[in-house]
């Protein structure tokens, strides 16, 4: 079974703190993604990576950065957390083969910024 894990299920941080959300997949997938999920807005793509050290902005990259130094690990960084970044953050991965395949999701990190 594909396994995507996220470092924390719940996280509480203060405004202005630097926050790291970690995601690890164990299936040698090429693609990794970070989404945020908010009620009434669905999932919105923050950043994605299709190879080690490669990244592309998604639909809402402002206030976030990412790092992918190893194939299995994709980190989301909030440089200076703000209250409007309180949300559920979902990581996903996919094989990146020629045929479109499903994305496999982690359990999510519920981040609260106070």
């Amino acid at each position: 079974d594909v396994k995507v894990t996220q470092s924390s299920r719940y996280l509480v941080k203060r405004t202005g703190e630097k926050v790291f959300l970690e995601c690890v997949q164990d299936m040698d997938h090429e693609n990794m993604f970070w989404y945020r999920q908010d009620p009434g807005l669905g999932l919105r793509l923050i950043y994605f990576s299709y190879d080690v050290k490669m990244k592309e902005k998604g639909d809402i990259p402002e206030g976030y950065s990412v790092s992918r130094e190893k194939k299995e690990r994709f980190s989301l960084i909030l440089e200076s957390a703000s209250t409007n970044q309180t949300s559920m953050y979902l990581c996903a991965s996919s094989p990146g083969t020629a045929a479109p395949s499903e994305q496999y999701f982690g359990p999510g990190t519920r981040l609260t910024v106070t």
Partner: protein
Amino acid sequence: AQTVTQSQPEMSVQEAETVTLSCTYDTSESDYYLFWYKQPPSRQMILVIRQEAYKQQNATENRFSVNFQKAAKSFSLKISDSQLGDAAMYFCAYRSGLNFGNEKLTFGTGTRLTIIP
């Protein structure tokens, strides 16, 4: 840019009955893929079913089937013989047929399905 619309924020169905969740999308592309994902309470999102736009036949997976109307840009999910375990948020998602290996998904806002025992 593509958009995906789910106009039913909440739906409920009696156990063992059939329910249909609606999804419409907007795109100028002719080659694309559509997905339904399920997010059970406090559990991970999983794929329910997928549809390739070039296939005329509607996809089915056991009790789950879709009604894909390409001209109308509609992609509804039908759940037959609803079970308590079907209670979840359901998300419709779109993926462009371009850029193989780059699998960005555009999601709808979700429909929360409640199963009434």
